[in-house]
């Protein structure tokens, strides 16, 4: 079964170019989200390759589990950590890059050289094997539940352990009892009583009295000026706060100054 069909050849060349570009993107993209997307691309290409090579089940699993679940996990974590954390590509360990690149290149050459020199047998193709159980899935299942039964069981144990491990790792025991709302309130009033600048009523929710109730829309203060304090610091840091068009209210010129002063105060409150 020497060469592949033309369809597969086409798929391969297109797919391989895309996946190599994706891999390069993964390595060199500054933003992590971009990197993640690049990886998704690579994985999808690989899923096609799997299917093209007769591993239909794996191809589906690659898409569903890998690209779907695992990559989503990555994105979730990315979100938790903060989308804003960007990776600078400046090297900090002395000599790391200068050593890494030649080593990796050497490794790649060796690997490719090995493949090139290896006496690889003619490709048999998976059709016969797939046909044995009446289809790829069935044939895999036959193997999984017979020869690889033990490995299968053990891998399930690994999964459970890892799930437990993840919970244990991310769980945080409270060192002090959680404060009740009442206690928080009392504390806030005490601080206010000492003369600190505390907003007794709590910070305003975003979007209140504004044109829109999205999170990136600041709330409006009673005087109609937007409260910067009502918007998440991340959004503010990224400068993605929805622009505010002050409504034509009476005395709008004096309010501009008020907005600025209130805004400063709000910033302080948030940072506390």
């Amino acid at each position, binding site marked *: 079964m*020497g*060469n592949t069909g033309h369809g597969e050849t086409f798929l391969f060349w297109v797919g*391989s170019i895309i*996946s*190599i570009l994706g*891999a390069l993107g*993964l*390595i060199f993209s500054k933003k*992590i989200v971009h*990197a993640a997307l690049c*990886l998704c691309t*690579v994985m999808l290409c*690989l899923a096609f*390759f*799997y299917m093209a*090579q*007769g591993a239909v089940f*794996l191809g589906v*699993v*690659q898409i569903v*589990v*890998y690209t779907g*679940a695992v990559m989503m*996990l*990555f994105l979730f*974590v*990315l979100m938790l*950590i903060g989308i804003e*954390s960007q*990776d600078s*590509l400046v090297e*900090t*360990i002395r000599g790391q*890059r200068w050593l*890494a*690149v030649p080593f*990796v290149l050497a*490794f*790649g050459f060796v690997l*490719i050289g090995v493949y090139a020199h290896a006496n*690889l*047998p003619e490709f*048999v*193709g*998976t059709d*016969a*094997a*797939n046909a044995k159980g009446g289809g790829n899935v069935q044939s*895999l299942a036959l*193997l*999984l539940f017979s*020869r*690889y039964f033990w490995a*299968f069981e053990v*891998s399930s144990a690994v*999964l459970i352990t*890892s799930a437990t*491990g*993840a919970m244990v790792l*991310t769980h945080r025991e409270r060192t002090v009892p959680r404060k009740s709302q009442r206690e928080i309130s009392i504390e806030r009033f005490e601080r206010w009583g000492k003369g600190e600048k505390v907003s007794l009523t709590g910070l305003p929710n975003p979007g209140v009295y504004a044109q829109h109730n999205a999170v990136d829309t600041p709330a409006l203060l009673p005087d109609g000026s937007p409260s910067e304090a009502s918007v998440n610091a991340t959004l503010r840091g990224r400068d993605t706060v929805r622009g505010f068009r002050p409504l034509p209210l009476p005395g709008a010129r004096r309010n501009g100054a008020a907005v600025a002063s209130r805004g400063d105060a709000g910033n302080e409150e948030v940072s506390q």
Partner: protein
Amino acid sequence: MNPDNYLYLSAILFTLGALGVLIRRNAIVVFMCIELMLNAANLAFVTFSRMHGALDGQVIAFFTMVVAAAEVVVGLAIIISVFRTRRSASVDDANLLKY
């Protein structure tokens, strides 16, 4: 086309993944590069499965995915807990375990 090309592709992807692990500092990117390496290996497995006409390679690839999933779960959990304490996801910042 000779199906050997799949193997060359897997070698290239693996090498790129390794390069990423070595030069990126963000833990998540490093992690993703590892995933890339695993995937490259999987591709080789699947290709070999095709070469030999046996499904064992696919089974191994399947197990690789399982283990990769488990690894991702634990690894990400570790990243999170490191981030909580150190406010950083850079692998270079977690260097207390040294001489």
